[in-house]
Structures are given as C-alpha cells and as structure tokens.
C-alpha cells in the first residue's frame, strides 16, 4: 500500500460514480451483453493474480497463485468470447448497406 489512504478513497469514489453513470443510459436490449462485458472487465484481476503468483515463495503460495491465475484467465477470456459473440449478432433492418461497417 503506497497509494495513500485518502487518494485510494478518491479513486474509489470517482470510479464508482463513473460506473454508475456509464450504465444509467443503457437500453434494456443491451443489459445481458453489458453484464457480460462488465464481467469481462473485472477479468483484469488476472493482472493481480500474476503479480501475486510472481511474489510467491512457498509451494502453498505457488499452488494458490497458480489456481488463481487459471481462474482469472478463464474470467477474462471467457467473458470476452461470450460478449463478443452476443454483440456480433446485433443488426438493424438496414443491413448490407455498408458492408463491414459498424453500423
């Protein structure tokens, strides 16, 4: 903990408002992909598990770290794959107007 207590609290507060703001304008049709997408974003825990495992010194710590990395990688990769698959399917009725475009 080198980030000072209050700085951490400020980051915490601002991030919380950001999260709240981002979601508040999402149409219901995107709720499932969005839940899946936010599920993907907390897959960043992978970075944390890598650091934790990287500091491990005993076999027990290494074992826990190893399992944690597997779980975190599953969270990140799985979250991405299913979100992408869902979003890929959303189309408008004005299809094929612009091929390869995002619209």
């Amino acid at each position, binding site marked *: 903990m080198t980030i000072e207590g209050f700085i951490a609290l400020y980051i915490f507060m601002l991030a*919380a408002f950001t999260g709240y703001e981002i979601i508040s304008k999402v149409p*219901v049709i*995107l709720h499932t992909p*969005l839940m899946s997408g*936010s*599920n993907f974003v907390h897959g960043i*825990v992978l*970075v944390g598990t890598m650091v934790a495992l990287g500091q491990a010194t005993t076999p027990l710590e290494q074992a826990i770290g190893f399992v944690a990395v597997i779980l*975190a990688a599953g969270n990140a990769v799985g979250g991405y794959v299913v979100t992408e698959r869902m979003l890929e399917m959303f189309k408008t009725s004005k299809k094929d107007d612009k091929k390869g475009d995002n619209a």
Partner: protein
Amino acid sequence: MSLIINLAYFAAAVLFIVGLKQMSSPTTARPGIMWAGVGMVLATVVTFVHPEVSGRVNYTLIVLGIVIGGGLAWWSGKKVAMTDMPQMIALYNGMGGGAAAGIGAIYLLQASPESVTNTGLAIATTGSLIGSVAFSGSLVAYAKLQGLMKKTFHFPGQQVANIAIFAITVILGFMLATGGGEIGSATLLLFFILSLAFGILMTLPIGGADMPVVISLYNALTGLAVGLKGIVLDNPALMIAGIVVGAAGTLLTQLMAKAMNRPISNILFSQFGGGGGGAEEAIEGTMKEVQANDAGIMMAFAEKVIIVPGYGMAVAQAQHKVWEFTQLLQKRGVDVKFAIHPVAGRMPGHMNVLLAEAGVPYDIIFDLDEINEEFKTADVAMVIGANDVVNPVARTNPDSPIYGMPILNADQAHNVICVKRGKGSGFSGIENHLFYADNNQMLYGDGQKVAAELVASVKALG
C-alpha cells in the same frame, strides 16, 4: 520500466471505461468490447515485466495458468448455446471472484508484522470474503441454471444458520485484520472455508427465476472484490476497473430487480414460487383452441401484429422459424413488431440476444414501456413461449404473488393467440387468466413445429 507499466495500466483503465461506455449503444457496442479487449491484453503483457514478478518457476506457472484457464474458457465460450448464456456468465464471474480470493489468501499468508498495516489487512480480508462468496455463490447459480441442481434447498432455521455463519466469518476476518500480521494458518483456513460455505448457503434457497438478479449481484461483488485487491496490490488498473464494475453491476442489479418488481432483499432472504400464496380468483370463461392454419391466415390478413416471445420459444429453438414467418408477413405488408418483457428470457436483454441470433433486426424489437400502448391498436398479439409476463392478474388481483409486476398488455389486442406446449401454469405456478379471455385462442404444440406450420399456412396463400 515502471513508467511503461504505469502508462499501460493507465491506458487499460481508460480503454475499459471507453469500452463500457460504447457498449451502451447497439451500434458502437462491438468496437466497445474490442477496445476493452485491447486494454486487457496491454495490461496483461506489461505485467510480465512487472518488477515484483520474479522466479523461473513462477513465470512458468503464470504462462501455464493463462494457457490452461484461457484455453478452456475460449473453448467453452465459443461452444455455449445462446440460451445457456446466463449460467456461462455466472461461471466466468465466479472464476473472477475465486481469483480475487486467491490473491487475498496469498497476501494474508505472506503477511508479517513488518510488511503490513492493519488497514491493508482489513481491505485484503474484506476483499477475500466478498470474492469467496461471489465464487461459491456463482457456482451454485451456474449449477441451478444448468439443471445440475433442480431443487431449491430449505431446512428449518436456515436464515438463523446463515446469519450465524456470516457472523463467525466476520469475527474471524476481524481477527485476521487486527492480528498485525501474526496470522494463524488455522484461522485463515477456517475463514476461507466459512466464506465459501456462506456463499453456497445463501444461494441455495433462491429459485431459478430469481437467478439473473443474483448473478448480477455476484458480478457486482466480484468487481468490488477486484477493486479492493487493487488497493492491496497498489494497482490502479485493478482498482478502477473493479470499482467501475462494482458500481455498474449494483445499478444493473437494481434495474433487474425493479423490472421483476421484487426488492433485492426479498429475493435474497425469502423464498419465491414455493406455495401459490393467496387465494386464487375463480376463473371465468373457457379456453378456446385454434389450429395453426387458421391462426396463420388471421395474421396474414392483419394490419398489425405484435409478437410476444418468451423463454419457451428459445427452448423450442423456434426463433428462426418465427423470424421467417415475420418476414413473410412483412412481405404481405403486415406491420410486425416484437414486444420484449424485461424478464423475458433468463435475464434482462437475454431475449434480444436470442432474437438477434435468429437475425431479427433490433429496430422492430420494443421494450415494455415503448409498446404497451400499442397493443390496443394491434389486430393480433401472438404470445409464444411466454406466460407470466402477459398474465392480467398482475394488474387485477392484489392477492396474486405476481400482483404489481409490470406486464405486457397483450390482452388488449383485438385477438390474442397463445402458443403453448400444453395445458398448465407457468414458471411461477400461477394460472394465467389471459388463456380464458374471450378474445384469446390457444394454439397448442411445440414452438418450432407451430412456427413451421404458420410459415406453411402463409406460403400456401401464395
């Protein structure tokens, strides 16, 4: 070197926020998840040169773990059917919670009086508790939705037992947090066992219908746990991404609970769908049956048709045929719209995904608020695989368990056709009064077969 790492984490945090923001509109959602993906890869890659990561064995284990975990998730994510999406999200989410708990376990194992502060210990302990609960709870949610665990689980004094376990866990956590780094491994082990047990016990009594809200809640909890681990590990990317998800997930949970007209506390601490609850009103009228051919012709000559799809349609894999039928009607000049109840499917937005999979464009799909007034002007409302979400007792009978739940006013259309597998009540076990209404006709049969017959009947018209 640390500058590069910090820059990469900063960029990842920005990309996550931008990505989530873009996911709030269907046109930009796909690039949104891709940007978030870029952020994830960036953050992961630079972590390999993180100064605190060392040891050849550790590096090997990291790479091996990513390959195993990532590979399995890639394979399962590509394979899973769209109908099974909610439990898959629960599973991946649980894995994240478990990972956060694992970080906490290592931190607490390594803690020594010189290296830690009580604040650090308290945050690590809290994060571990939340992560463990999200982990075991999500696994139970997964098992329930996957059909591995059919029954809800009750025993006398369950709530008291849950509270007791939670209280003991908190006391152990308090001991860990104030121990100044002198942590007994027995205390630590018991703390994690009880945390996991609490997650299981809390989720067991919750019925399948409420699972989406629970999954969403655990998603928010995992986010929070990850954010707390970010503080412990001094990693702003973890902090920001975790807390953003924690807050967004909390709001999403509230929105879902609101759509189902069920306070979150009610979902978590009471049991739904067990007994019928309240006196059933006597039902007036009789059920009338209609043949697919007649129903198809009726819709072919209508001006406006609203289709109300439910999870039953997706289970029958009928959405492709329904879309084919819709296109035939559109060619004849019929105005066809889809009306989606917030809890159609297994979580808000799930039905939209299932329709999108069949190729239905999202601009003819409407939410409850957008379309409810239009039922009055519709010639035909076709309800396929849905039940409780069109049951008028939610408006009329205060004794009904679903009273007050917003419903789609399909009963106000001039004619209603309910496609249903057989006679019987819906998910909640409540009789649907719409089936007995004068303007309603029942079309019995498997969703896919009925839809195919409807297609044939319109094609026969030429």
